[in-house]
């Protein structure tokens, strides 16, 4: 199969890009690992009904999913991209797997819309059953109406944390306690971005309503929390912090989200350290174009800006793809982009304020020695620090010394922390340390799937490289 544009991910960016690209006449393929469109933010949105405890902003995603379904774009749910060769003869060769069967397609262009993941929060005890991300609680609610039973504690910060607390309360499962970790000095830092108040007024109004909602549901909120710990033997039993402790059946952690750069780093796209959002992101131009001519990145995968901005950057990338493939003149591309850019400026206006206000406390990047950093290979922060003292200069060497990042998650969870730890131990800025270099397969696959892989026609007579 050969397509004009292959889009990886069916969240807001991928859905919006696909609908527009197909409308502009591009043979478009959307590949998504989940069973239904929506991404994380609009997960299972097609099933949602008016009056959903998830709220009106969530329901806004229904239009994007409907537009994808109505479009001529081919949509492959339940499908995982495991390899991309960006410099194949006719564009890029993309290998994907569904139900154990692998297939390789040729795409003239690739759009990575892989979204975001929750920042790892390696507190003591974070590997105990009962400790999950706040996003995980929301996923259970969105996908199947499942809520925590027993005493739930939400800990961390960010717009999502209070929202999830409220959604759980509306679904009849209010958390017992919200522990907010926002350092006091963040408020002063955020005050420097008051220029965002007017353009970001809608988001601010929504955000300001959240604490009020929590109070109405009788959810206790404790601010300025430090020294979080999950306690228990084989399961979570209690949550402790500097100056307090409560018995708990669930702890949901959240310190914001970071771009999912596993594939973009694997492709060796140029990346930069975002000092405001404290994460790596691919370097992109005004259309999402990356350092590779056949690859673009849209949505949160290119830097955290939220669902509304994601849909807009997805459309910008679709316009550019259409122009580069001769379906749209440059002038028409620019004319159509103008209202999208205006929307993007508005949607992004609040971001500097949010980034400053919810900047994770320094402790998030400096777990204690005894804490397991690599959940897969069970490597502690102390072992990683020792490898650095023994001379491992960067994450890829620390990996060779300790096995951290060598497990099934391929460094997705420990990566950001390992880099931060090395920077701290060596006294070098994070930007100079760099991230892990991921390699294909981007998700583990069986030898059977690989042996049975069907490769594109031009490669059919040769063995896979």
């Amino acid at each position, binding site marked *: 199969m050969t397509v004009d544009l292959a889009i990886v991910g069916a969240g807001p960016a991928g859905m919006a890009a696909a609908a527009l690209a197909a409308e502009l006449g591009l043979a478009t393929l959307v590949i998504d690992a989940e069973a239904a469109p929506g991404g994380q933010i609009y997960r299972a949105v097609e099933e949602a009904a008016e009056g959903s405890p998830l709220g009106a902003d969530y329901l806004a995603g229904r239009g994007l999913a409907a537009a994808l379904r109505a479009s001529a774009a081919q949509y492959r749910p339940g499908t995982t991209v495991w390899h991309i060769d960006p410099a194949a003869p006719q564009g890029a060769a993309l290998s994907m797997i569904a139900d154990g069967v692998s297939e390789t397609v040729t795409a003239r262009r690739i759009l990575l819309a892989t979204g975001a993941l929750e920042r790892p929060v390696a507190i003591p005890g974070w590997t105990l059953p009962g400790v999950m991300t706040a996003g*995980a609680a929301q996923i259970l609610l969105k996908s199947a109406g499942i809520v925590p*039973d027993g005493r739930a504690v939400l800990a961390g910060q960010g717009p999502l944390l209070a929202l999830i607390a409220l959604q759980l309360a509306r679904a009849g499962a209010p958390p017992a306690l919200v522990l907010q970790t926002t350092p006091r000095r963040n408020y002063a830092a955020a005050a420097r971005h008051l220029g965002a108040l007017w353009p970001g007024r809608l988001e601010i109004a929504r955000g300001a309503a959240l604490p009020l909602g929590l109070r109405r549901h009788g959810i206790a909120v404790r601010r300025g929390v430090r020294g979080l710990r999950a306690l228990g033997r084989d399961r979570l039993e209690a949550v402790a912090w500097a100056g307090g402790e409560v018995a708990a059946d669930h702890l949901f952690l959240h310190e914001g989200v970071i771009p999912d750069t596993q594939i973009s780093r694997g492709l060796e796209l140029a990346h930069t350290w975002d000092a405001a959002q404290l994460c790596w992101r691919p370097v992109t131009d005004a259309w999402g174009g990356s350092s590779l001519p056949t690859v673009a990145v849209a949505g949160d995968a290119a830097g955290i800006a939220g669902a509304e901005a994601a849909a807009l950057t997805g459309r910008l990338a679709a316009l550019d793809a259409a122009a580069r493939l001769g379906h749209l003149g440059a002038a028409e591309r620019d004319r159509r982009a103008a209202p999208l850019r205006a929307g993007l400026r508005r949607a992004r206006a609040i971001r500097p304020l949010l980034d400053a206000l919810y900047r994770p406390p320094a402790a998030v990047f400096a777990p204690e020695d005894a804490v397991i950093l690599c959940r897969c290979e069970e490597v502690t922060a102390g072992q990683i620090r020792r490898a650095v003292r023994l001379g491992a200069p960067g994450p890829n060497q620390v990996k060779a010394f300790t096995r951290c990042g060598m497990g099934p998650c391929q460094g997705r969870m420990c990566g950001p922390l390992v880099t931060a730890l090395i920077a701290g131990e060596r006294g070098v800025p994070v930007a100079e340390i760099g991230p892990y270099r991921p390699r294909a397969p981007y998700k583990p696959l069986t030898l059977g799937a690989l042996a049975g892989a069907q490769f594109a026609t031009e490669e059919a007579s040769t063995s896979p490289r």
Partner: protein
Amino acid sequence: MFRLRADAPGATIAATIPVAVEGRIVRVPQGASAAAALLLAGLPSSRDSAVAGAARGPYCLMGVCFDCLAEIDGVANQQSCMVRARPGMRIRRQRGARPLEAE
């Protein structure tokens, strides 16, 4: 432990899909993943880690962390959060690393 939400009228969730978790039948709602079934089943943990054999449970539920690894319909090391529950699905705890079998 987890349960089905029971909030506004008309929003009650029906658990209609029977799956076997560690041999015990658990009914889960449409849209639930195998990981969600493991959580609804109320097991204290859903896997023993590969190195230390420590108790673990699902962590991120979005395909990132691989802590929800389980044996599904006889195939070990599946990311149970990425697999939708189907009627009759057999889900078991992942007990450490998968043994290598020579055939």
